[in-house]
């Protein structure tokens, strides 16, 4: 099979990125960031409260954790729903005991279906990050802009209305975007997006509705990735969280404030035998001086004050 002549033409071979969404820059060359209280590390914990509809289509692909069996897949539906009913309360207990706050990435469907969770979150002054409508309503290249705008508006609007929170953060289901997503998010008043995993610190993103920021929401340092996808042990989960923290903590001493971000799925880490490992990992972190437990919005506000 031959390739066309222009296969070796490179119209975007130039200094910087091959697109205009953000500027190329190396983390180590940027100015040092100072967190409130001169903390070394901002601890940003992001549990996801998700709903996988029983009639999921999985189009154009299945989001991580999506239903797998023929309809009606009670097995996966209910296992995921366990997180909303039970698992999240175990996480909240650990966080309360350690005096930590979280930013919860929430599908709008969860807010509508389970208002009790909104009350729990608001009672703790935790932040809600818009996490799309549900785990089967994906944003992807090829989705018509009007259809995507409707998804964004429904997700953000529902969460604002149900929670009374401003809702300035966004995490796409499956961290999947179309070429229009960032523009539509800015149009909806979103200030930061969690889909991009190319940095350890916030950076500016261009949209057709002005600048927003990307925040380093994790992909690999996440209970689902480590325990379910990679089949690592719970002890390995703890080791990886500790190694991540220790590396960032040491680096912060040289290079300025860092962000320790941890993604959690209540149906995974909220399982009875696993929850103690979350406590173990977080206990290691909070035993250090200079750890600032913060929400995404707080981290962004501190960062923007120094741009």
């Amino acid at each position, binding site marked *: 099979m*031959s*390739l066309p002549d222009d296969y070796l033409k490179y119209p975007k071979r130039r200094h910087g990125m091959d697109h205009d969404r953000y500027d190329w820059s*190396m983390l180590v060359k940027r100015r040092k960031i100072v967190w409130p209280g001169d903390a070394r590390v901002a601890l940003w914990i992001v549990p996801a409260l998700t709903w996988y509809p029983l009639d999921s289509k999985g189009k154009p692909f299945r989001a991580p954790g999506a239903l797998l069996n023929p309809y009606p897949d009670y097995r996966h539906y209910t296992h995921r729903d366990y997180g909303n009913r039970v698992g999240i309360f175990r996480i909240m207990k650990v966080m309360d005991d350690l005096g930590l706050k979280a930013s919860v990435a929430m599908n709008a469907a969860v807010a509508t279906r389970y208002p009790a969770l909104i009350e729990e979150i608001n009672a703790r002054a935790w932040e809600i990050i818009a996490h799309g409508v549900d785990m089967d309503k994906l944003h992807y290249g090829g989705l018509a802009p009007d259809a995507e705008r409707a998804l964004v508006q429904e997700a953000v609007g529902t969460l604002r209305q149900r929670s009374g929170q401003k809702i300035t953060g966004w995490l796409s289901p499956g961290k999947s975007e179309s070429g229009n997503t960032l523009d539509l998010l800015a149009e909806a008043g979103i200030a930061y997006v969690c889909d991009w995993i190319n940095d350890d610190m916030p950076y500016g993103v261009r949209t057709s509705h002005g600048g927003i920021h990307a925040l380093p929401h994790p992909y690999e340092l996440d209970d689902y990735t480590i325990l379910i996808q*990679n089949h690592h042990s719970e002890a390995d989960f703890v080791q990886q969280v500790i190694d*991540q923290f220790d590396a960032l903590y040491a680096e912060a001493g040289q290079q300025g404030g860092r962000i320790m971000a941890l993604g959690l799925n209540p149906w995974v880490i909220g399982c009875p035998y696993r929850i103690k490992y979350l406590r173990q990992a977080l206990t290691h972190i909070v035993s250090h001086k200079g750890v600032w437990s913060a929400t995404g919005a707080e981290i962004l506000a501190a960062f923007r004050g120094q741009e």
Partner: protein
Amino acid sequence: MKSDPELYDYLPYKNRPKITWPGGARLAFWVAPNIEFYELEPPGNPQRTPWARPIPDVLAYSYRDYGNRVGFWRMMEAMEKYGVRGSVSLNVAVCDHHPEIIAECVKRDWEFYSHGTYNTRYTFGMSEAQERALIEDAIATVKKHSGQKLAGWLSPALTNTERTMDLLAEYGLLYTCDLFHDDQPMPVKVKSGRLISIPYSLEMNDIIAYNSNLVPPRQYGEIIKAQFDQLYEEGETSGTVMCIPLHPFLVGQPHRIAAFADALAYITRHDKVWVTTGREIAQHFLANHHDDFLAASRRSAPR
């Protein structure tokens, strides 16, 4: 299509000529970071879709971009701490996109060898003219940005044609990393000139360890040490090569860097280890051992 690559003869790992590395070392140790650029909107290829999800595949693209923005520096500092120079498997378009990274490597006397232009442009299916253009681009770009004469090749995304090795030899390259058949350098059969394979290793590669074999970071460190122990022991009688191929977007993540640094500390505290580069291994082997290995291969070939 051929049933055999026809690139090397069978040569059992027994009664081979002995390789002696400079300084009487038993083992030549090299680290090969893949410094890459994946395009957000690459052209289609009939044999391989660059991204799993519809374009823009934000997750996969930004995953790799992390290596250049963040991971490179951590990896480089760990290597520098233990006196290890990199042999960079380079998508040469990085010279244009991110010359700042190239400059840091040049400053530390790292080698650059070619890993194609972009990791989203594949060699299979190329015409000879296209493949020549790819090689000429790599030679010229590396020369321009580092002053180095290109010596090595790892095909972009491990994609080859049947003529790749012949062309590399014709253009005066010394080594390929695309063959995984041995723990010692070996002559490669080419139409003209000389070319050798240098052990690069899929098993030591962080992308295989982390994303295919799904090993935890600390276990990756232990795997590296165990591989070293065995090759070091055997190297006393055979002369071995050990490579750690890396991807800054993987090894350079905070939760993985300590395990890698620990493995480097372990290896470099041994004597009789030649900490070197791909080019230096190739030059030493070609000057001192190539012809003996070629003769041994011919002797062991079926009559």
